[in-house]
């Protein structure tokens, strides 16, 4: 489909039209730092008013992953006392993630593959099937923590229904899927003029110039570099600073490990199986009931995470385990950076 444009002033009308069909989740402004009025904190939320949508957002602590993969999710219910009759609980409703940056588009594709692989997980995939993704292209890196260009997540070729490219007073609108076509029908789009097409190309050139490779090698060599560093003391050295708090896992857009627990109603008539995010950095993660802990040292847990992000998930699914969004580094109280870690081990060879 030929490229189209949407005026910035018509965005609200489009979002209102979308909201009539689906819940709309988008980045909103949460707070402004009192010390620095330019320091804005954004978060992904379901929106009530289209005016709250902030497509000028940079980073969010949590990505839009939470709308597909909630921090807590009910899996099954059963009765207590009588016939247990366990039943699956698969909850989803139509939603649109509005303004997803390329890194998060790529991260969602990784989650899709992980939850589809071998034994499909309908609890995730049914939400995913009911979710439209409207991407928003980036003109420049969010900050120094981002290394999306290296991790191959800056130019996603799929995983979204519509991609918006910001252009002064308008958005360039590229439709990727049939669903995207249907979504755009509610927008006051116009075919792009020659000048607008040129502006789009100028944006692409600006984008290319604004992002720089930060790893000393191509990312395809990362699994090999990690393997070569397996026995290095580097993990122990970095783990000296690590508190094993799991913030990196919590904020990671591709982390999908979970714990399952049972919640019982106060009248003891019903119970529920619930899963919640878990973290491979926490000590009990690899412990078995008998007490044996297979990743006792902080360094072995930290190494496991770095290997998962740079190697294991890629080998298991064919999709990148790290999209270079920088969230784990920003969240780390000890200032541990996955990018700097990759740079260090690549440089140690």
């Amino acid at each position, binding site marked *: 489909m030929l490229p189209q444009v949407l005026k910035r002033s018509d965005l609200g009308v489009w979002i209102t039209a979308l909201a009539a069909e689906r819940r709309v989740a988008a980045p909103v402004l949460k707070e402004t730092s009192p010390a620095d009025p330019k320091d804005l904190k954004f978060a992904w939320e379901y929106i009530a008013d289209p005016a709250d949508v902030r497509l000028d957002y940079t980073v969010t602590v949590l990505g839009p992953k939470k709308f597909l993969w909630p921090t807590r999710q009910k899996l099954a219910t059963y009765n207590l006392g009588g016939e247990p009759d*366990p039943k699956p609980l698969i909850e989803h409703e139509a939603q649109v993630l509005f303004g997803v940056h390329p890194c998060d588009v790529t991260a969602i594709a990784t989650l899709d593959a992980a939850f*589809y692989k*071998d034994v499909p997980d309908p609890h995730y995939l049914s939400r995913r099937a009911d979710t439209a993704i409207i991407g928003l292209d980036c003109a420049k890196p969010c900050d120094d923590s981002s290394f999306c260009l290296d991790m191959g997540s800056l130019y996603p070729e799929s995983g979204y229904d519509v991609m918006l490219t910001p252009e002064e007073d308008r958005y360039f609108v590229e439709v990727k899927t049939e669903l995207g076509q249907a979504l755009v029908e509610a927008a006051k789009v116009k075919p792009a003029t020659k000048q607008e097409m040129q502006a789009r190309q100028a944006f692409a050139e600006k984008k290319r110039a604004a992002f720089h490779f930060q790893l000393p090698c191509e990312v395809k060599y990362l699994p090999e570099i990690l393997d070569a560093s397996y026995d290095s003391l580097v993990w122990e050295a970095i783990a000296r600073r690590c508190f094993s708090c799991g913030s990196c896992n919590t904020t990671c857009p591709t982390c999908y490990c979970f714990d399952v627990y049972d919640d019982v109603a106060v009248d003891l008539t019903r*119970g529920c199986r619930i899963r919640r995010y878990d973290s491979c950095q926490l000590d009990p993660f690899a412990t078995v009931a008998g007490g044996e802990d297979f990743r006792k040292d902080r360094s072995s847990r930290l190494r496991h995470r770095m290997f998962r992000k740079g190697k294991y998930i890629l080998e298991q699914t064919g999709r990148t385990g790290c999209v270079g969004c920088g969230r784990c580094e920003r969240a780390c109280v000890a200032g541990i950076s996955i990018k700097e870690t990759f740079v260090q081990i690549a440089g140690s060879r």
Partner: protein
Amino acid sequence: MTQVDVDIEKGAAAESPYVPRMAQILAAEQMTETERFFRLKMEGPPLVYEPGQFVEVMVFGLGESPISICSSPTQGDAFELTVRSVGIVTNALKKFEKGHRVGIRGPFGNHFDYDVMKGQDVLFVAGGLGLAPTRSLIRYVLDKRKDYAKVTILFGAREPKWLLFRQEVQEWGKRGDVDVRVTVDRGDPSWKGNVGVITRLFNKVEIDPARTWAVIVGPPVMFKFTVLEALAAGIPEHRIICSLERHMKCGIGKCGHCQIRGIYVCRQGPVFTYEQVKKLREGI
């Protein structure tokens, strides 16, 4: 590298892999202070499983626990579990009797390759609760005894009171076509058998390294020393089989708890050759 081709619509319509089916307890017996034996039968279609696989046992209201199947599919539609009470779910199971019901998910995991061992010698080495998963293959091999050459079973426990399947192990010894050796780390006044760690039993049996498969299951500390003995006997690495214990929480390669490096033990394991385990580095 596997490139997973994702079909979201198909996956969304899949049946939930997290919902257990009901099973009824046909028999329950306290085997030791902490280990309880169960024979169960699924309500509806029977459990189709292979030796070495495991199930998730659900106690409604409390949760699930991954348990090795200790019976062989050659025994019929019922299946058997040996549960050590170490956690909330497994302690609750102590009170479960004949007629009670539990939820079962599975079977999960790969299994012992009994076909590849056909016509050859099988050496079983089981420590403590390791006899439970090993028994699934022992029962299979004994039920198809003529398919296998020499069968040797080495079994060890800390003390006589911790020996599992004591009577059954004695019966295996009486068959005449199986060499059974049992040892305990520390004897008690009534114990007349071998005393000493399980590795000492290796010297008592004859092993033809050219035709022996060693199946080793036990606590992590035991693996290292028994694998060493098996290698010292000349058995090649790819014919030393181990079953590894990890916390298999989901059973379907998602939750991450059972991972050893890039391997999900619940799917690619729990059965590995020593050749594979060696490469994993974090295996044992």
